[in-house]
């Protein structure tokens, strides 16, 4: 092997080890430990870095939660780099940004003082909240998910069924669609406070509000899908001797409703938007309530943790829905 070939091979291996994300990662971990004692001993800044246990006295909370998050991203980065399908530079670009954000956040608060400590606490404080409040968070997660699943399920299910019939019976469409258009024109966020105010329990109120926000768009979507069905498809179903009812259920329903699953992601995002808004008005549990409560207490460390939690939950659910779509919509032509 020639000398240049050898060198280029060594360089090639080196670029997996010495690259900007890796350097930033090491820097971020170092920075997480830097001045940690000072932080913990300062009563104004030790929020959630020190935990008092009556039996054992003071327990020092090192920034392990934050470091665990950094390590998680680093592991993800290395995995993507060696196993991923994306180009080398795309992966390094992305993780450069990820670690740069953490570095900027931590150093901006702790070292340079660009970011005000009280309004934006450093990441080690924020991530420690998860180790303290996980029980409340998990409970809030399930409360919120329950409301989302029930109301999105009802909204989409009934929306699809009503849309199917209204789209099929021209006369029903003529009669109903102006009314529906009027109702659907009002964003759910507008009447949410009103419904929360007049409904006895918060759960019922948020189910109603999310339901309205999901039901009307789904139904209108379904009506237009049914009307756009090519007459030839219906002809070919009729030529298989199908009755009107079975054409409706066996042909139009899958033909028009399954593409609506493609809009599930938007609907769930809308549902979260409405729910979290509603929770900030009238709930006493849930993800939105958690954020609202700590904002009211001016505890921005917990506020921030709550916001990160919502981001993670929504992203995770989106990923699950995408997976579900790929499984269910196998027959849909791959989008090019």
């Amino acid at each position, binding site marked *: 092997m020639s000398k240049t070939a050898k060198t280029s091979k060594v360089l090639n291996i080196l670029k997996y080890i010495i690259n900007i994300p890796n350097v930033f990662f090491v820097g971020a971990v170092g920075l997480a430990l830097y001045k940690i004692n000072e932080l913990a001993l300062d009563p104004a800044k030790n929020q959630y870095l020190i935990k008092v246990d009556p039996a054992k006295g003071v327990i020092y909370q090192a920034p392990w939660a934050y470091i665990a998050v950094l390590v998680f991203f680093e592991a993800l980065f290395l995995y993507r780099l060696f196993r991923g399908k994306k180009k080398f530079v795309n992966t390094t670009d992305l993780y450069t940004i990820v670690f740069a954000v953490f570095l900027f956040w931590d150093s901006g608060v702790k070292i340079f003082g660009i970011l005000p400590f009280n309004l934006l606490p450093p990441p080690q404080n924020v991530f420690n909240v998860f180790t303290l409040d996980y029980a409340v968070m998990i409970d809030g997660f399930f409360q919120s998910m329950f409301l989302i699943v029930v109301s999105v399920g009802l909204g989409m299910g009934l929306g699809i069924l009503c849309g199917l019939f209204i789209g099929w019976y021209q006369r029903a469409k003529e009669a109903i669609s102006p009314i529906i258009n009027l109702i659907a024109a009002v964003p759910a966020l507008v009447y949410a406070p009103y419904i929360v105010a007049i409904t006895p329990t918060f759960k019922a109120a948020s189910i109603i509000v999310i339901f309205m926000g999901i039901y009307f768009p789904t139904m209108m979507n379904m009506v237009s899908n049914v009307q756009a069905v*090519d007459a*030839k*498809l219906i*002809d*070919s179903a*009729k*030529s*298989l*001797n*199908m009755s009107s009812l079975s054409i409706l259920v066996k*042909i139009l329903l*899958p*033909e028009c409703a*399954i593409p609506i699953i493609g809009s599930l992601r938007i609907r769930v995002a809308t549902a979260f938007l409405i729910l979290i808004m509603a929770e900030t008005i009238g709930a006493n549990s849930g993800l939105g309530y958690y954020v609202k409560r700590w904002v009211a207490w001016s505890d921005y460390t917990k506020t921030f943790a709550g916001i990160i939690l919502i981001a993670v939950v929504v992203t995770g659910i989106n990923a699950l829905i995408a997976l579900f779509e790929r499984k269910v919509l*196998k*027959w*849909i*032509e*791959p989008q090019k």
Partner: protein
Amino acid sequence: MSGIKLDNLSFRYNQNGSADYVLENINAEIKEGEFVCFIGPSGCGKSTLITLIEGLNLPTEGKVLIGDNAVTGPGSDRCVVFQHYSLFKWMTARKNVIFGIKQANKKISAKEADALALDYLTKVGLAENADKYPHQLSGGMQQRVAIARALAMNPDILLMDEPFGAIDTKNRMQLQDLLLQLCESEEKKRTVVFITHDVEEALYLADRVIYMEPKRIKEDITIDFGPKRVRSEVFASDKYHHLRNRLVTLFYENIDAEVVL
């Protein structure tokens, strides 16, 4: 009895309005077991005629008779293959065929239907692709599935509306041969009404070619190249050239008439 009789048939869309007639006083008789091609310029009413035979539309005046009975709606004695849209895209090829079989014969067991479906998919050369979805199959393969489904439903009358219209030449030839072979090999001699705008296709496939001009039948030509015809022999024959010229001339006349207008 599965002969078709078009008895003084007239039709217009939008029956109560003032729409023009699309078909006027059509009279024709198609014998049981005959393979008839309708050919003519686009818009002359060929597809409309198929919907009338199938019962998707009902005549404004006159009757369509199958045997001795007037058509009042779709029936399991007839089956249509369209150019597109014949298959349901959320079902695999096999499920599509099974669906058709179950529609035609509600009492059949799931196992029998599955075996029958696979049998017909094998006949059209798609046994290996039975579990693919329509979008994973080429246009020609999709039409093979549609034909398999139509035949598996065991209709007396097979109606085909430009089934190979969107398929490339080579595949179209293969499909034509497959169709002839399937029609000849089955024990039941089916009546086939086949629509096309391709003169060669009509001549090669049909026992009889009916040329339509807008609204009416212009000419009714008996072909009959006999069973087990060979494409190269048919195309080389004088009879073929003679008939081809005659049909092509009919298309020309039509163009000239339009130019004069």
